[in-house]
């Protein structure tokens, strides 16, 4: 039965709380579960002594009663922070495992799929998002359930002392009540599971409202009201099915009333009648009356925590199979002693899943050790795909990529990437210190502050650092205490320093994916001068459509139709008079002759 498996999946996470904390919690829970029975017994004893005539005999039971009462308050109070800590430890480990899993799967294609991102949203267990179920709450709910079961047994003993049949009667009622509530929760989840697409669309527009980029256009084009109507429509699609379902739940709640009233009413009336007729001692009657509601309270746990946690863990389990675990390849060996390898693309093809035409189609390309190779091509020619394949972020659908004759797939991503450094257009802005922001350019090696400082000097970032309030320790995000926000140009220097740091710590191939598309002339010139000066013996692959930069490369290849169509030095390609020469001529001629040199479209193909 899958529900049992779900419960087991929750229970096996209980030890994540740590042995000491777990034993303390179990101890507290068991003690607490003895409280209802103890209260009932103490109350019965007290009443017995009182009705027995001599009130002075009541001091002992009164003391016992007071002690039970106090114990209950203290146990509940102490359990609260311990439960919090256990829950937080379990959630913390869950989130750490999830981020490790997502960050270390060898390729990136799975992470780019929408259903994987949806699974991550379900499994992320953010305790400050109230819609998220967290495994910690679910696991603790199981512990709670165990405690309640023990309490139920205790209450049953008290009841059984009066009449054995009252136990199954009340327990049946309590179980039925629990089932009814569980069913409600499941119904809700089921309807909700069908709507993430609509809520994602609504979220997309509501993100757009507060994003500076989309926000500008929303204002200029007067899209505000229109976008809000869109959000409204998507949300109604998501929420409309919930309302009728809730009404059904509301209308069916009377079943809970009956489920509680019938067994409890029978037991109470029979107990009262019997005791009034002298059939049962008064103490037993009182204990039975008190224990009767205790049975229902034993089952009063909110099932929502268990249901939500189960949904979360199921999503995590699916992610573990979908994202092949990269634990084995996290750490590669450092670069081999020699210089940069010869890299060869041999008949490499690649197409995105669901897309008919391949992006790369039998591509052959050689990157020689130590050369500065520029890759050009019109938008969508597959330049960025080429980089992702080189970095092992995608696997080719056909062909192979070799380094010094060895397939990079055989080297394993960890070992291979240790020799690479890639500057992506959408580089990462870590909300960490300036030093970390540079040193994370190569996290495989131990952080080397001397290399960080050297790389920053080469990148021109050291001047910025000297002006930061806490120097290298300043967090590069205003969201952090004492943190600062850098400008776009300053971030560019951080990224350059990051790449140069990787080169200083063993990377032999540097890839630049349109790193300066948004930079002005002087900054671009500066970046390339610095790079050329400090790259040492490393190979550099530059992707750019700025041909004024490209021409400084040792060799230029033109990508078109998924293959390399032109290959040579800038001068050779110009002399060959192919598509590259045409592209260059267009950019250059505008400077030489002004604006009126129109080019006919036919000339470009």
């Amino acid at each position, binding site marked *: 039965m899958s529900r049992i498996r779900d419960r087991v999946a929750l229970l096996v996470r209980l030890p994540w709380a740590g042995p000491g904390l777990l034993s303390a919690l179990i101890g507290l829970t068991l003690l607490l579960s003895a409280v209802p029975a103890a209260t009932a017994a103490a109350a019965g004893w007290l009443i017995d002594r009182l009705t027995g005539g001599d009130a002075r005999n009541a001091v002992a039971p009164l003391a016992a009663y007071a002690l039970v009462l106090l114990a209950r308050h203290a146990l509940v109070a102490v359990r609260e922070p311990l439960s919090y800590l256990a829950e937080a430890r379990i959630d913390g480990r869950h989130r*750490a495992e999830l981020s490790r899993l997502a960050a270390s799967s060898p390729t990136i294609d799975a992470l780019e799929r929408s259903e994987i991102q949806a699974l991550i949203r379900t499994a992320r267990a953010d305790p400050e998002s109230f819609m998220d179920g967290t495994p910690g709450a679910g696991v603790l709910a199981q512990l709670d359930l165990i405690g309640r079961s023990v309490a139920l047994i205790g209450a049953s003993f008290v009841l059984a002392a009066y009449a054995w049949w009252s136990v199954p009667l009340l327990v049946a009622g309590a179980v039925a009540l629990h089932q009814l509530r569980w069913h409600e929760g499941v119904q809700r989840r089921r309807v909700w599971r069908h709507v993430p697409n609509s809520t994602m669309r609504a979220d997309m527009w509501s993100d757009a409202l507060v994003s500076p980029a989309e926000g500008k256009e929303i204002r200029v084009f007067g899209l505000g009201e229109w976008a809000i109507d869109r959000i409204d429509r998507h949300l109604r699609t998501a929420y409309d099915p919930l309302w009728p379902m809730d009404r059904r739940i509301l209308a069916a709640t009377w079943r809970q009333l009956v489920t509680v*009233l019938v067994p409890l009413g029978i037991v109470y*009336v029979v107990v009262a009648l019997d005791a009034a007729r002298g059939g049962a001692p008064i103490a037993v009657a009182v204990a039975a009356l008190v224990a009767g509601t205790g049975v229902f309270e034993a089952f009063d746990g909110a099932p929502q925590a268990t249901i939500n946690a189960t949904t979360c863990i199921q999503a995590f389990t699916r992610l573990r199979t979908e994202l092949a675990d990269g634990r084995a390849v996290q750490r590669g060996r450092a670069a081999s002693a020699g210089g940069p390898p010869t890299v060869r693309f041999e008949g490499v093809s690649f197409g995105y899943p*669901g897309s008919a035409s391949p992006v790369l189609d039998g591509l052959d390309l050689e990157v020689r050790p130590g050369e500065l190779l520029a890759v050009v091509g019109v938008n969508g020619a597959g330049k960025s795909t080429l980089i992702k394949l080189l970095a092992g972020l995608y696997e080719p659908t056909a062909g192979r990529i070799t380094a010094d004759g060895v397939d990079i797939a055989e080297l394993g991503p960890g070992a291979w990437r240790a020799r690479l450094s890639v500057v992506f257009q959408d580089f990462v802005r870590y909300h960490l210190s300036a030093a970390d922001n540079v040193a994370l350019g190569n996290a495989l090696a131990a952080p080397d502050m001397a290399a960080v400082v050297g790389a920053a000097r080469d990148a021109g970032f050291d001047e910025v650092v000297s002006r930061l309030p806490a120097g290298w320790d300043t967090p590069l995000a205003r969201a952090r205490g004492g943190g600062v926000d850098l400008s776009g140009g300053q971030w560019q220097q951080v990224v350059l320093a990051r790449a140069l740091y990787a080169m200083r710590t063993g990377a032999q191939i540097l890839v630049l994916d349109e790193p300066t598309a948004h930079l002005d002339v002087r900054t671009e010139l500066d970046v390339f001068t610095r790079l050329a000066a400090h790259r040492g013996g490393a190979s550099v692959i530059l992707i750019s459509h700025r041909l004024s930069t490209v021409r400084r490369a040792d060799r230029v290849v033109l990508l078109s139709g998924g293959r390399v169509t032109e290959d040579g030095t800038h001068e050779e390609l110009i002399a060959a008079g192919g598509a590259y020469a045409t592209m260059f001529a267009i950019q250059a001629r505008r400077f030489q002759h002004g604006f009126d040199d129109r080019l006919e479209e036919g000339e470009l193909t």
Partner: protein
Amino acid sequence: MIRYVRLLAELLALNWRLRPLAAAGLVALCLAGVPTTPAMALALREALDGIVQRDPRAAATSAAVAAIAYAVGLYLRSLAYTLETMLGDRVGTLHIRRHIEEQLTRLDGLDHLERTDLLDRITVLRGAAWRLNHAPWQAVVAVCDALRLALLLALLAAVSPWLLLLLGFAAAPLWFEQRGQMSIADAETGTAEAFRLQRHLFNLATAAAGGKELRVSGAGPEIARRQREAWEAAVSGRFRARLRAAAWTVAGWTLFTGGFTAGLLLLIDRTARGEASAGDLVLAVTVAMTLRNAVQDTLFAVGHAMSGRILVEPLLWLRGYAASAGTTGGRTPPARLRTGITLDGVGYTYPGTDRPALDAVSCHLPAGTVVAVVGEYGSGKTTLVKLLTKLYRPDRGRIEVDGVALDDLVTAEWRARTSAAFQDFGRFHIRFGETVGIGDLSHVDDRGRIADAVHAADARVLVDRLPDGLDTQLGRPFDGVELSEGQWQRTALARASMRTDPLLFVLDEPTASLDAPSEHHIFQRYLVRARELAARTGAVTVIVSHRFSTVTGADRILVLHKGRLVEQGTHDELLAAGGRYADLYGMQATAYTRT
């Protein structure tokens, strides 16, 4: 506090207006639940008295009443829970969320999106609509719980006025627990930064964009480790606060139990002397057992209602801000531009910085011309464009459109006569045709106009390659096609080409992500387009670029340097002047001509 209570009342009124039945029902359920607990305690006393007096009928009836009171209480709570969820979905998620978003779109400017201190408050508000609706209902629950508590204490008082002394002892746990809650709330604020950091790192590790770099640099495990570290730092602070709170709680309840035991002793004495019944004692015992729940429920509800304050402050701020920073002006822009746009000593400084982004810029942009704005990174080009589109208001100086101050023009109407493609353009994950069509909402479904705009942006080849043409869904998250940087830029250009009668047409670095042939084509087309617009409405076209090759054909070139307008004139004039423009132009040109 008074503002907060007023807002809670307003939210309740909103619930009442939108869903009168459900709202009234929920209030009725809460109120009806109040007497159930005291009723059960009373019924149990009667039952016990019946038992002691050997009256089976009275005992059985009272026992049945106790069972009914218990079951009904449970039933009412279930109903209230469902009903509040329904109201949260309907009123909170649909209406309050809409209200917040409307306030956001009422803001003409961009400050609130670009300043982190303002953005923080907006971030808190977003996604808080459900909780905002929860707060007033928790206040209702708190009132009901307090009533229940008062009833229970009144019952004790009825047994013996001496037990009223318990009131003082009951205040102890209330006060102590509240102390503890405050220390927890302080810890939450104190550890918020660590918590934000762990969320940032978690999102970094699980998103595809950052995932590329994390894999290549091998930073994944390190990020996961630091995420866990930040998590643990936040948790340990919060745990310690909870431990302190637990100590307060234990102290409070110890005091209470001591007082209560003394009260019982008193009662026992009275029972022994025949002044009270055993039923009274049962009543006191029952009440004592429910008292803790009553106190905690009350505190819990008050706490929840108060936690809404975290959200209410930003909401009130946003309303005030939207009201003050809202729209200005009452005049309509002209149908046709006659003289042009004039800047007179215009300056703008970003909040929180001390260096002006633009300083004393004066110039005239004649009607029907193409004006290029060039300059290095951070020279103020984009700021100038944002001032012209009224996304910022100048701190100093003024901007006039045909002699009328830009501030006096109704913002929405001026914007309706503007079109723009920005450097950091929007990526709208909708259908391709829509992402273009929203450039002119009145023609969002006009296929002909969309096709023209696509043509203007030289994006027809792109559309032909899409699986469903104009109906292709964009964006990987929605199982659509993901466009490259350059392709997204074309959608922005096409969108900017939808309006056919703008007075101001802005192209802010429109081709930074495009390859050479595309850039060339597009500039040719937009130059032609600029002339057409000039003929139709006297429009001014402003092209911002750091690629000098693209602007040589402009009628006038403005050269910005560190926020100041340092040179202006035609390409030839500026080259002849041999100043900054000639210098920068030469640098780019030699990159092509040098051999």
